[in-house]
């Protein structure tokens, strides 16, 4: 059975939601505590869920990036293991340099909660493999620091290597290129600002998120 590790930092608050989603998908879920190194070979997939790890103090994701569990996660990722970051998880993966760029304060300087329309820019075989290039999806967003930024040369590389995963149809937060989700070069680490785990049943207002795992 596919075993999914769900990372938990102090201040993570989507951990339980992701955990339920993983189980609903029929996988085995296990929490991984920020202070503990873990045996990465035991897992088939890791998720870094959203929230406010370490209060999002200093910079979103900065303090979490230094935690022991991230060392194990890094080993897992460099061996090609699939890692999915959601919202704060995206920020943490950028701060850990597992993904390029940074996420800074929304252009409007406010937290934004809404439904957002997204376009699949490049397909990803590990997460949401069924989503086709150009397809539109509807997912909830909820973040204050979601504006994607990368220096020009880095951005060029991101595009050249087809690392852009998802794009906002309406760029509500001022992200460069409307980028809502990216992948690393090897495409095994991927992250997005929207919350797939909040759109997995019709009663939630949409179920486009279901297939992201």
């Amino acid at each position: 059975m596919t075993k999914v590790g769900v990372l938990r930092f102090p201040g993570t608050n989507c951990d339980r939601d992701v955990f339920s989603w993983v189980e609903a998908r029929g996988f085995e879920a296990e929490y991984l505590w920020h202070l503990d190194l873990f045996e990465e070979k035991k897992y088939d997939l890791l998720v870094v869920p959203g929230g406010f790890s370490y209060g999002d103090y200093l910079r979103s994701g900065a303090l979490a990036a230094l935690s022991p569990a991230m060392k194990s996660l890094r080993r897992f990722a460099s061996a090609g293991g699939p890692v999915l970051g959601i919202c704060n998880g995206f920020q943490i993966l950028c701060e850990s340099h597992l993904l390029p760029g940074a996420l800074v304060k929304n252009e409007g300087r406010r937290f934004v909660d809404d439904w957002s329309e997204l376009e699949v820019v490049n397909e990803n075989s590990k997460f949401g493999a069924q989503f086709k290039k150009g397809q539109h999806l509807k997912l909830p967003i909820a973040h204050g620091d979601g504006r994607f930024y990368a220096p020009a040369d880095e951005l060029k590389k991101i595009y050249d290597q087809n690392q852009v995963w998802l794009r906002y149809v309406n760029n509500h937060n001022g992200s460069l290129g409307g980028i809502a989700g990216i992948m690393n070069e090897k495409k095994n680490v991927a992250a997005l600002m929207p919350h797939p785990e909040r759109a997995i049943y019709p009663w939630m207002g949409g179920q486009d998120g279901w297939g992201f795992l």
Partner: protein
Amino acid sequence: MSLDFQQKLKHYRISESEYQKICELLGREPRSVEWALFSALWSEHCSYKSSRAHLKKFAQTINPTVLNAAGENAGVVDLGFGERIAFKMESHNHPSFIEPYQGAATGVGGILRDIFTMGARPVAIADYLCFGETEAARMPALMDGVVRGISGYGNCVGVPTVTGQTNFDSSYNQNILVNAMAVGLFRPNDRIALSSAKGVGNLVVYVGAKTGKDGVHGAAMASESFDENSEAKKPNVQIGDPYFEKLLIESCLQVIQEGLVVSIQDMGAAGLTSSSFEMASKGQVGLDLHLDQVPLRDSSMTPEEILLSESQERMLLICEPSKLEKIKAHFSRWGLDASPIGTVQSERRVRLYWKTELLTELDPDLLVENAPIYQREFKAWSFPRKKEKIQKVKSKNLPNHLMEALESSDHASRKPIYRQYDQRVGAMTAQGSDHDLAILRLPDSGRGLAVAVGCRPSLMKVDAYLGALDAVIYPSLQMAVKGAKACAVTDCLNFGNPEKPEIMSEFVASVEAITEASKILHAPVISGNVSFYNETKGVNITSTPATGLIGIRQDVERIPSDLFENEGDSVFCLSFQAVQVGLSEREFSGQLNLEKVAGFQKVLMSLGSSGLLKASQMVGFGGLGLALAKMSLKGVGFESDLSWSEDDWSEDQLYRALLVTDRVQDFELLLERELQAAGIEEDCEFHELGLTGGSQLKLGSWVQISVEHLKSQHQNGLKNYFEGV
């Protein structure tokens, strides 16, 4: 009496008669920290001295579904299937006026602690806000700060803010209201934790943030009117840390659910003083407390400051000595310290030590049970009292009236506010703030948990009794049109100076009205909060008994939409005729027959859960035309060829529902049957208004406006206020 003495009374906000009573109780004069203890626990905020006599009436509403209401941090209502809900609403008005961001943030933090201290996981927040006119001094900054404060705290702590209400009125120009409600869920096997200290020899353990000088004398301050000197009270500002709160939630729930604690209580108003004395008093035991062992942020703090500090994110728990190590381990895993600071004693005395010195030794009941109760002067309610118009929009011409109303602060979209709130964390939200009614899906039974707040200040101005009835009834009808049944009520009674008979009369009338409405709807009042002295420079706010309701819907499928969804659906209006209020000549007449209102609620509930409704909405103030305009905002228009007058489209009635269906025959049959069953055929009027469709709102010969136009008007009214630095 000496000047020094008078100043001391003033400093501790103790009246002369209260001083006499203290001396009688003690058999001597108070000394050292006792002044501070009495000041805090006998403050209006902690003792409810002006309201206690009246709040007892709420007990009449209690029914067997309520698990433990009296004296606990929040009441708990049993919804069946093992699912139980704890919920409560609280004000943070004065702190928010002084420092809006921190005031609102710590308000949210405080009410959340009341919920998880009982062992319930907080699953929703709702905010009830009253601002002054947008052009009043400081108002844009206050609005913005309050909303950012709620957003900053609620989002980070990971509890969704799913609904709320925002009012604007000149009576709040110098005294805004910031009320927050928290809803907590006990799943089938969860334990409920109580707050009475028990078990001689057990340990008193302090957990959470270290104590600093924040908010010393806050409780006493909240029990006073505002004056010019309020600016000088600044050092009282408390700083909230939602991150710490999140750690506390997780760790406290863990130790409670593992059965490691005997009892637990948050440190709220008057901090350590109120939590320790109340725990001792409730448990009929004594406590030995060592103040020098309280973890401090600032080592220069005096015992008095330690006792009164309102530093946030702190809890006090009682445990058996053998459990201490396990408890410590749990908290330390979350990065928190748990420090024993005392023990439970059989003799009913609270002894406060500073190192080896015994500062005082008091029977906790002296402070808690013997707090003064005032019978403030009031008059029995007789109505109707005032003839105020409810609407502020001036235009008589219907199209202008609609356009003006849609962008007015009363009706403009609240999206710039709730867009800043995370509405979906927790993954239980079926409907959030962008819906008329918030609904969460309960994970075990799959039922819908409806959450709503109420109280329409414009109606309170017309008549306090009617307004307070409405504060319970209107949200229950908002639930009913979506097929949900109101189950329980909490309240947050925001009033002016209770020493003024007019204010006290409105207070008493409101308590009676809420009691009556709750009884008739079988929705008990399970918790509440009173905020008096909302008075600035002699001006009192509009009495505002805010309410919070929870309700149950059998599932979360086929909930009627708020908006027109399809072309060609029939739109009906069902109005309850008993009372008419508002614009034009009719103003205010009649009385509400509560039995019949309850019947009306039942009728709406069966329609709302029948699956026959495509959309539904309660018609708020502003008239039918405005309600239809709001229902078109998704893009599907509406056309009526009724030959009604402009007044017919714009006048107000108290209770009217818009019901949209594409199965007219089935709908009419059901409606007729339900009206008969409820015995209210004579009391309701029923009209077919027209059909949905097109891209315009057309009302007879009066109105023909494109929906796009309505939409931009509605979207922009408040936008500018929430974009500042």
